[in-house]
């Protein structure tokens, strides 16, 4: 390198001194993860107002939907349904957001929505914590915050509209596959990544369901991971069928995984012999339902998700609810909902798609 020996020696000495100093600092009074947890715990906390369940929905409410990224077809359906719902009760809605799904890009938009004095922000968070600071600012200014689809940290929003409970999704998938297989045979799971929180929660409920007596002839032989990568999921499917030639069913609770698995099955000799179920979107799966590779799969209805989110935000902004457990509100044609623990509102059972109803959905 360009440094001469003396300079190099000097640099090394400086570096060493700096390190020693740092170590010394740590030993005496460093800020570590443990000590910071205490420091941070007393920060935040939303003010609790009183709810008036009889208050009418306010007119002219301004709602903003902030999806993970704009131009995502799934999120567009959610948001447009929410905007349409706002028109039902005399409010206005808009969708704004970044074109990339990086953790930080939503933050600028939250700031903007604060400046524009929206009545409510509905957000599908790319990162539960990166959006937290500005969302707290929004709440401090009286703006209601509703997370949907993908939650933020709990103290950064008043409500979280969950598509379906994890238990419903996990147990429901096993129940559906059980019926298809007559509760008999070896099955496998094709998941996304090994540390995906939602996937792992669903899988743990699947395992719970499989412990019930009616599943005594059904055996889960393997959980494979396709990393939500189309090619890898395809290869994992291939591998599963080679490793377990008598495999009867696969559950893939990820839209990328189920589509890749269906593609493999449709061209292989396993078509019609191995039952595939899981979570997918109608547009991805339409061909495989029509050609007989897949009989059914499920997913929540994104239009209802947006619709519910919109009404929940309006109920908050009108003072009907505050986000506390046990409060009730009416979400238009979907009927009455109750706020659960940690401000969670659950849309309901996932929708099952098959060849009878798939053509009525476009997303």
């Amino acid at each position, binding site marked *: 390198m360009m440094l001469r020996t003396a300079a190099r020696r000097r640099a090394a000495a400086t570096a060493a001194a700096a390190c020693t100093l740092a170590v010394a600092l740590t030993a005496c009074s460093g800020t570590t993860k443990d000590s910071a947890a205490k*420091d941070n715990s007393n920060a935040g906390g939303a003010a609790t107002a009183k709810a008036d369940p009889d208050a009418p929905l306010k007119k002219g409410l301004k709602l903003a939907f902030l999806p993970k990224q704009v131009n995502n077809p799934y999120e567009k359906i959610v948001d447009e349904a929410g905007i349409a719902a706002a028109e039902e009760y005399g409010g206005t809605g808009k969708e704004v957001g970044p074109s990339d799904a990086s*953790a930080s890009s939503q933050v600028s938009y939250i700031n*903007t929505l604060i400046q524009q004095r929206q009545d409510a922000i509905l957000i599908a968070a790319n990162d539960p914590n990166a959006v937290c600071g500005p969302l707290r600012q929004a709440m401090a200014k009286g703006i209601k915050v509703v997370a949907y689809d993908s939650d933020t940290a709990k103290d950064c929003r008043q409500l979280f509209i969950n598509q379906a409970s994890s238990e419903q999704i996990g147990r429901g998938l096993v129940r559906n596959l059980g019926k298809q297989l007559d509760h008999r045979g070896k099955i496998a799971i094709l998941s996304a990544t090994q540390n995906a929180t939602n996937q792992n929660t669903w899988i743990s409920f699947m395992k719970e369901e499989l412990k019930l007596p009616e599943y005594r002839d059904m055996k889960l032989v393997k959980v494979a991971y396709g990393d939500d990568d189309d090619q890898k999921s395809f290869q994992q499917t291939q591998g599963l069928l080679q490793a377990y030639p008598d495999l009867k069913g696969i559950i893939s609770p990820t839209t990328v995984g189920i589509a890749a698995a269906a593609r493999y099955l449709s061209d292989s000799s396993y078509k019609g012999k191995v039952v595939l179920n899981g979570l997918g979107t109608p547009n991805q799966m339409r061909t495989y339902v029509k050609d007989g590779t897949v009989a059914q799969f499920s997913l929540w209805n994104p239009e209802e998700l947006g619709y519910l989110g919109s009404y929940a935000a309006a109920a908050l902004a009108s003072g009907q609810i505050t986000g506390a457990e046990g409060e009730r509100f009416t979400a238009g044609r979907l009927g009455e909902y109750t706020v659960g623990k940690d401000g969670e509102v659950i849309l309901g059972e996932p929708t099952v798609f098959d060849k009878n109803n798939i053509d009525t959905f476009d997303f």
Partner: protein
Amino acid sequence: MAMAPETGTAPGSSAREPAGAWVRAAGPRWDTAVGVLLVAVFVVGLAGTDGFASGGNLAFAFNDIAEVALIALPMTLLVVAGQVDLSVASMLGLGSALTGALWNAGWAFEMIVPVVLLTGIAGGLLNGWLVTRVGLPSLAVTIGTLALYRGLASVVLGSDAVTGFPHTYASWAVDTTTIPGTFVTYPIALFLVLAVVTGVVLHSTAFGRSLFAIGAQEEAAYFAGIRVKRFKLILFVVTGLFAAFAGIVFTLRYGSARADNGLGFEMLVIASVLLGGIDFDGGRGTLFGAVAGVLLIGVLRNLLTLNDVANEVQVIVTGLLLVGSVLTPRVVAAAVERRHRRTAGAGTVPPESEASSPSSAS
């Protein structure tokens, strides 16, 4: 409210003609034009956009570009010297990922900081070494290390997001903590101080003058006794250091350490620098221009978002500004040269054209 504080603090606004290079180097004074444009955009925002003038929004608008601004300072020096570093955003990501991983491992934050900074220095050394010793062009080297550092970041932290950083440090980086009585946040205050230092280094020291010489004619600079390789190495190391530091600022500002933090920021940094009139071929530009360019991009983005302009359109606007900023000075320079050639005979070439690039001379 201090209007356009950048004009007051940046060194380029000073009228010290003897220091010459500050003013003359920009040729048709593109940097002044960008400064005027910045003030114009600012005034338009104050007059016409609801919510723009609030202290909270201004603090946010500037803080939102804090990392880009910090990295733009050493990047300006690099580009003046005819080099570029595309790996800065990846180094930011690596710094963030490392901060998260070490924090998860129970390290003290006070110890994580020096380790992350040393990593930045090491990354800069690798870039500099490959450019000066192996003799590869900086564009090629840093395209490689762009992938390398981002890859390392993913190895260090995977797809996790680490949170829960100490409030004591995080509060320094957020936009709600400002210097009392102003809308200046601490990252931006630090940037302004460093901008003054960088401006003095670039425009008032032998080191700075050498960078212009290297950027204009590297061989001539070498024969004039300038230690070209050492200077370049220093620049890459400083850039790596700033990028890693920006990684810490980013992590604290969003309260979330991730390997994909700052993805694509290198383009924003380079766009700001070029927008400020720093010649991509090296040898010309002022730090005032670069600072004005950074702030212009920040204010413009804030204004466009406040007016609900779609993200795609914002990208197009930034792109057009960039193309314009690279093209306009050359078109003007070419026009000036043509007029000189027509009116005068030989031997009266204006000083500006000496440093002008071959493409504008042809």
